[in-house]
Every structure is written in structure tokens, then in C-alpha cells.
């Protein structure tokens, strides 16, 4: 061995003790001479570790080159990652690059990244993090995410940015890990919260930041107590219900940016949901928030191709569907619309699988009066007797025609189990994905699906926040009634990085409510083929949000004739489209 490398960090990289050798105050700034580097040199002198003159001179030249590189306003990370990204097939989009530059150079590292779903907020945050690391501006970094996304962050940072972050497992990790990914729910609890509050972070990244919309929650107070230099908050929905949520988020990043709440209300709130002085408000928001939207000038997405598959039920299935629907109508008449939620669930389940319907009925039965309970019991018996499932037959037939990977979405776990049972029996390798899986297992399932399995059967909860761009075929075994949830499903595959057109197969049972839902979502709103930007804002504007399903159910319960239901849903669809138009024109556009 001809060389003997120093394996400890150079003063520029070494863990700064922050020990100050000498401090002076000049007219407009303070000068701190640090001991760190000098002590390293002295310790080498004492240990007689003297390097050669040639290495010294070369080191000096390297110091100068590194400093010169840092003088540019361009992103250093781009050149650094170019080869890695070429290997990985990562293409940074112009809006991501401009966001990273703006956050670093104009916003001084404090921003809410509020791009619409699928525009790559994680890439933007990773890029900013990498830039700060390369420029030696950040060393101690904390990434707070929902527990389900820990591994996704870990892989994204490692694979796309060559950043080896740690995942928090013990209370010691907070102090000893330089770049740590942790669950917000864990971090906000003791004993962790007190340890974290004592650390000064260079950068904190908070994913799914809309969870911090309420300033009276423990999570909000915890994040507000963190000591940090730079902070990024990621959310696609900075406003979910009212403007106060937006105010609260901004107050975490930059308290006072929108004044005190009293002045904010006076200056910018017409009502809870309608802003005043939108132009001025937008100007203030632009200083702390970046929201990239889909559409011209941002990102070109591949096409969504909708393939509706209409399934005829057997007479026995048709009869059972009719009886369950009647049971729901009768129940709604008896109990009113107060407890509409279980009825919505039941109505949706009966279009999915009788197994799911049976399980819900079984749970409901204890709260029913005698007559209703006996009808429910009779229904349960008959549901168990039906051996055929026409929808699953159609699914099997469809899957046989598909050669590539496919994700089958269902809203219900019981249906998920049944689908898997049927497909496995038919010889397919399937994996299941749902909210009950542990953090590691979710990532494992994703990787099994990517490498080995052909089919992933996923429930809604399992889909949130996880990306499957390597797959371009989606089967909606049943349809969610809420367009937001439908968008989340499709968004798993139809997002940045998807290079192929996305095929969407919708299984619709003839003569059921699904036909009407399909009419509303596809024909009226055109949800499947186009991405409706500002979906969240539209729902909020129309005060629909969670009540979207309830509105549909109300129409369905109030009318029995097919034509009348269609007519009412059409006018509901028009109402939605009108809302969309108003949002575009109105001040909600301030986001």
C-alpha cells in the first residue's frame, strides 16, 4: 500500500462541536472563529501525523475548487445525480427544478410544497435536501411522515438521491442519526418529543402536512416547538375545509406571514371558505408556498384509456341485489337519513361482493328491530346460498386477456379476500395490499409485486401515498362514489414516471347503482379520462367533501325509477361542473 488515507472527516465535513475559539462583534455582523478545524490540525501535530507537501497542495486546490462550485446559483444536485438518474430512468421535470431553485434561493429554505397529486413533491423535497447536503448547508435532517410512508421515503432518498437516511427505531436515533426518517405519530409522543425539541435541525421535512391543519392538536404543537433552520412541508391539499387551515400551516412555516389570526380574518376572510382580497393573499402565499398544477406548461401525462365492462347478474344475484336495496330503502325510511353511512356502505358492498354485504349485515343485525332483523337474517341466509359471483367471473375472464401487471382495486377487505381466492385458484400469483399491513410489509409487498407477482389486489387505504408507476393497468372491481378517492386510485399509476398509457377497466354490474355512478363519474364529470385539477377545491367550494357519497345516496333513496335517478344525477353532475367553473374563475384559484 503506497498511500495512507485519512479516513476521518475534513474540518469542512466534520461534526461541528460548535466550540468557539474567539468571538468578535463588528459593525454589522459577528465573527466566530471555531476551534474544530484547528484542533484537528493540532491533534495531528501531536500524533505526528504529518502528510506530504504534495497532498497538502492538492488538498488546497480541492478546497478552492469545491468553494468555486458552490458559488453557482444552479443546482449542484443535477450534475451530481445525472448519471444515477439516467440509470434509474428518473427525469427531473422543469417545474421540479424551478421549485427547488426557488425554495433555496428565494424562500431561504422555508416553504410549503403544495403541488397537486402526482407532480412529484417528494422529488422536489429530495432535490432540495440533496442540494443542501452538497452545499454543506444541512447536516442534521429530520423527515416526518405518516408511518405508512417511512420505507417509501427511505427508498426514494436512497435510490434517487444517493442519500442513506436512517429510519427511527429507538429513542437514541434522534441524536445519533444525521438524516432520520420518522413517523410523526411516534415523534410527537414522549419520551421522543422532549428529545427532539432539544435538537436544532438544519432541515425538517414534513410529508402529508395537511395533518397539521388544526393548531390545537398535539402534532401541531409538537411541530411548532421544533427548532430548525430550513423547513419543507408537503401537502397536496393545503386547504381541506376552511381558510384557517391554510393560515395554521403558514404559521408553522412562517408565523406572522399572514399577520395575526384576527388581522388575517379581517383582511382576507369573507367567510370560513371564501377569501377576501384574493390577489393580495395570493401574493403573500406565493412567498411561502409553491403549488404546481397539472396542465399546459407543466407536465405532459400519458393518456388514460377507459374500458367499461358491463356485467349481467344472474337472476338469483339480481333478486338478491333487489332485496338488499329494498332493505336499505326501508331502513332509511325507518331511521331517517341520520345514520346514512352504514346504508351507503351496504349499498356499495352489494355491488362488490355478497361476502362483504353479508359481513356488514351481520354487524348491523344487533341494532335492528324484530321485523328488520328477521329480514336481515333471511337475506344473510340467501346471500350465503348464492354460489356464483358474475363479477368475479368477468374479472377472471378479463385478467386472462392481460399479460402485464395489473392492480385490482376494491373498497372492501372481504371482496379483496374473495378476489384473491378466486384468482389464486385460477393459477395467478397475487399479493394483497391494505392499510392493516405493517410499514415494512407494505414495502415488501410492493417490491414482490414489482418483481414477481402479476396481480396486486388493493383496498383504498392501502393505496394512499404509494406509487406503482411500473404498472399501467388498473381494474376497478367496484367504484368508489367519491371522485377524490377514484383519483387517488388512478393516481397510484398515472403519475410522473409513468411512460405508458394507463388502461382503466371498470367492472359495472348492469341494473345496479353502479351504472348510475359510472354515468355520473364518467359521462358527466369525465373523471376517468381527464385529471380534474383542483378537485379538492371544487368539492370544498360545493361544500361536498365527505358528503359526496351521501348526496348520491339521497338521490338514490328518494327515487326509484331509473330515468328519474339518472336525471337527478345529471343535474348533480351539472352542479359539480358549475362548481368547477366557479372555482376556476373564483378566488380559490389563489392556490
Amino acid at each position: 500500500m503506497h498511500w495512507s488515507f485519512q479516513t476521518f472527516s475534513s474540518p469542512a465535513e466534520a461534526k461541528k462541536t460548535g466550540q468557539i475559539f474567539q468571538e468578535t462583534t463588528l459593525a454589522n455582523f459577528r465573527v466566530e472563529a471555531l476551534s474544530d478545524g484547528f484542533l484537528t490540525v493540532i491533534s495531528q501535530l501531536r500524533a505526528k501525523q504529518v502528510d506530504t507537501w504534495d497532498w497538502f497542495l492538492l488538498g488546497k486546490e480541492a478546497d478552492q475548487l469545491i468553494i468555486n462550485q458552490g458559488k453557482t446559483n444552479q443546482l449542484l444536485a443535477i450534475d451530481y445525480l445525472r448519471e444515477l438518474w439516467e440509470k434509474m430512468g428518473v427525469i427531473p421535470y422543469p417545474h421540479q427544478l424551478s421549485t427547488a431553485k426557488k425554495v433555496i434561493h428565494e424562500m431561504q429554505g422555508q416553504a410549503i410544497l403544495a403541488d397537486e397529486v402526482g407532480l412529484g413533491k417528494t422529488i422536489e423535497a429530495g432535490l432540495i435536501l440533496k442540494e443542501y447536503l452538497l452545499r454543506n448547508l444541512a447536516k442534521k435532517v429530520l423527515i416526518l411522515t405518516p408511518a405508512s410512508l417511512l420505507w417509501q421515503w427511505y427508498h426514494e432518498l436512497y435510490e434517487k438521491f444517493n442519500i442513506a437516511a436512517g429510519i427511527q427505531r429507538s429513542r437514541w436515533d434522534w441524536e445519533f442519526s444525521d438524516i432520520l426518517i420518522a413517523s410523526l405519530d411516534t415523534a410527537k409522543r414522549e419520551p421522543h418529543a422532549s428529545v427532539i425539541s432539544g435538537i436544532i435541525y438544519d432541515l425538517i421535512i414534513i410529508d402529508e402536512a395537511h395533518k397539521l391543519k388544526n393548531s390545537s392538536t398535539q402534532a401541531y404543537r409538537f411541530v411548532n416547538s421544533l427548532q430548525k433552520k430550513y423547513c419543507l412541508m408537503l401537502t397536496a391539499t393545503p386547504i381541506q375545509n376552511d381558510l384557517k387551515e391554510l393560515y395554521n400551516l403558514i404559521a408553522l412555516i412562517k408565523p406572522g406571514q399572514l399577520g395575526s389570526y384576527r388581522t388575517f380574518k379581517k383582511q382576507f376572510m369573507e367567510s370560513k371558505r371564501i377569501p377576501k382580497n384574493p390577489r393580495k393573499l395570493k401574493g403573500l402565499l406565493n412567498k411561502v408556498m409553491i403549488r404546481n398544477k397539472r396542465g399546459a406548461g407543466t407536465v405532459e401525462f400519458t393518456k388514460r384509456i377507459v374500458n367499461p365492462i358491463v356485467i349481467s347478474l344472474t337472476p338469483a344475484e339480481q333478486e338478491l341485489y333487489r332485496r338488499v336495496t329494498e332493505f336499505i330503502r326501508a331502513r332509511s325510511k325507518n331511521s331517517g337519513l341520520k345514520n346514512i353511512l352504514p346504508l351507503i356502505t351496504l349499498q356499495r358492498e352489494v355491488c362488490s361482493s355478497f361476502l362483504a354485504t353479508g359481513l356488514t349485515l351481520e354487524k348491523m343485525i344487533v341494532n335492528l328491530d324484530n321485523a328488520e332483523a328477521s329480514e336481515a337474517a333471511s337475506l344473510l341466509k340467501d346471500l350465503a346460498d348464492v354460489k356464483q359471483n358474475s363479477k368475479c367471473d368477468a374479472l377472471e375472464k378479463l385478467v386472462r386477456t392481460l399479460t402485464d401487471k395489473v392492480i385490482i382495486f376494491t373498497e372492501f377487505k372481504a371482496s379483496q379476500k374473495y378476489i384473491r381466492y378466486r384468482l389464486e385458484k385460477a393459477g395467478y400469483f397475487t399479493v394483497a395490499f391494505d392499510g392493516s399491513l405493517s410499514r415494512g410489509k407494505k414495502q415488501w409487498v410492493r417490491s414482490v409485486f414489482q418483481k414477481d407477482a402479476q396481480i396486486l389486489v388493493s383496498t383504498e387505504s392501502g393505496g394512499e401515498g404509494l406509487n406503482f408507476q411500473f404498472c399501467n393497468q388498473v381494474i376497478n372491481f367496484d367504484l368508489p362514489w367519491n371522485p377524490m378517492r377514484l383519483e387517488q386510485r388512478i393516481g397510484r399509476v398515472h403519475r410522473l414516471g409513468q411512460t405508458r398509457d394507463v388502461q382503466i377497466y371498470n367492472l359495472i354490474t348492469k341494473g345496479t347503482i353502479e351504472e348510475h355512478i359510472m354515468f355520473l363519474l364518467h359521462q358527466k364529470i369525465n373523471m376517468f379520462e381527464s385529471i380534474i385539477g383542483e378537485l379538492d377545491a371544487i368539492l370544498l367550494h360545493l361544500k361536498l367533501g365527505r358528503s359526496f357519497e351521501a348526496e348520491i345516496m339521497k338521490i338514490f333513496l328518494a327515487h326509484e325509477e331509473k330515468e328519474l335517478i339518472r336525471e337527478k344525477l345529471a343535474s348533480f353532475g351539472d352542479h359539480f361542473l358549475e362548481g368547477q367553473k366557479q372555482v376556476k374563475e373564483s378566488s380559490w384559484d389563489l392556490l
Partner: protein
Amino acid sequence: MGSSLIAVSLFLRGRGVVITLTSLVFRFFELCRLEPVQIRPGIWQVQIEQSLMQELDGRRAGNRLLQFTFEQHLAKKYGAELICEGSYRSNTILRLIQKQGLLTRAYLPDYVFDQAMLQKRMLEKFPQGNRIYIVKYETVYDQHLWIQLLTTRWGLEKRETIADPLINLSTGEVSKFTISTRLFLQGLPNKNTVRTRKLSFKKAFAAAVNNLEQILAEENDEWAQISLQKLEKEQTKLDHFYEGRLDSKAYHLKTEEIKRRFLPKVEIDTLRAALLYIPLYRYRLIVVDRTGQEQNKCIYYDPISNSLALG
């Protein structure tokens, strides 16, 4: 030289030395006793042992045949690793070099100075007609600490420069380093010729810092003023937000936070240092003037200031 290489050329002001990333990389391999082989125009190949590879790419790396190029189109064409400004490989090499040579010792051999020229300059110090006799000539080595100080200005943005004062450990004098580094030799001169240092390293560091502070006090501090204005603006917003709660813990935390972000400061840290032995030439003379009167004189030549001074 390709355009990417021209782009990374750095002209060291006042030194006239051009450093290119290319020359730096080849020098690195040379110091590692490795010889890259050009396998086709613009593409080099070098076999790197595991220990060095681990230093570059982390502990999971194994030994490998590294193919590299400085041209982007060649990197794409042949799949070689690209070494250009900011690229992954250039960064790993630069960061590894940065860790080396933190402390060194070198001396300036006394033969590099032309004695005849020095003596001629010495004669010019005395009035014409005087006769000068060199009774004794000796070289003593003074110890100097050449320290590389990273100076980071923290305002709205971070700006870094390197200061490299030379501190005479006998006199405490701080000066600019002006001698060509190529004249120095690795190691120590004859021990008998080295003067004992009177200044501790700590005091030398303090002297360097004081010197740098003086320079900073005189330079344009617009960056600090801009940052102070921003701080003031942010403080006003914060005070408004916490109106009526100015004694709360949250207010104090946020005040600290904005100070951390915007209060301008300069950080000085040592990157590396060299203990240099630089000769001081001492001539003992007898000067006989026109009247025949003799005088004993002592004259010094200091290579750092390139000046002769009567002692």
C-alpha cells in the same frame, strides 16, 4: 481540452496558477501511485484497490476497474464515468482529496536564492564609495504557520472564501504568502539552523484570526446589511403574530429561529495548515566609508517580504 474542462478551470487570483479538474484528478491518481491508461481518445481506465474504492464510494465498494472521461458525450457513448464539475465522481474524488494533507511540513532550501544578486542589492543599500566586506554569512530558519482558513459569510445566502495568512512563529508577524509553493521541499531543514519558535500554535491561530478580522472589518459588508434588514422585517412580523404573548416560550423559540437564519455572521474555521521553514539570511558586514572609518553592520534578507533590512 473540452469545453467542460475549460469551464472548471480556476484562475487563482494573484498566483497565476490555473487549476483544472483534469489536472487535479491526474495528480490525485499520481499521488495514489496509480497510472490511468488511455484506452481510446478521451477515455481512461484505472484499476482501483478496494481500500481506495471504499474511501470513494463507501464501505460496500469493492475493487474495480474505473473507466472515466471528462467529456459528456463520451460518457454516454462508452458508459464511462463522467468527471466534470459537480458530477458524482468528481465530487467523491474532491471530497477524498479534501480529507488529505491536513497538516504538512516543508522548507525552503537556501540554494534557491541567487547570492550574487542579493549581494548586489545589499551594496545598493550603502552610499557609493563605501567598501563593504562580508565577515560572516549565515542562514537561520524561522518557523511559519501557513494556515488555510475557511471564511463563511452567513447572510441570506452562504458565501465562502479561503484566507491563507502566514504567521511567523518567532515574531508573531502575520503576512501574505508570496513564495512559489514549487520551491518548497518536503520535511525539515538542518535542525541546528532552526530558530526556536516563540509563539505557541494557539497564539499563532489567534494572530491569524485577528488579522482576518481586520480585513473583514474593512471590506464591503452589504451582504450583512441586507440580512439585517430581513431580520428586522421578520422580527416585526413575528411580534405582530405573537401580540400579547411576547413572553411566551413559543415567541422566544421563533425569535431564536429567525436569528439563526438571518443574523449575519462570519465563521472562521481551519481547513489545513503547513509548518513552513523559511530561511532568513543574515550577513555580518564591515563597512568602511570614504573617510576610512569602519562600522560593523548586520543586514537581513527576508524572502517573504523580499526585502533587505539593517539589523
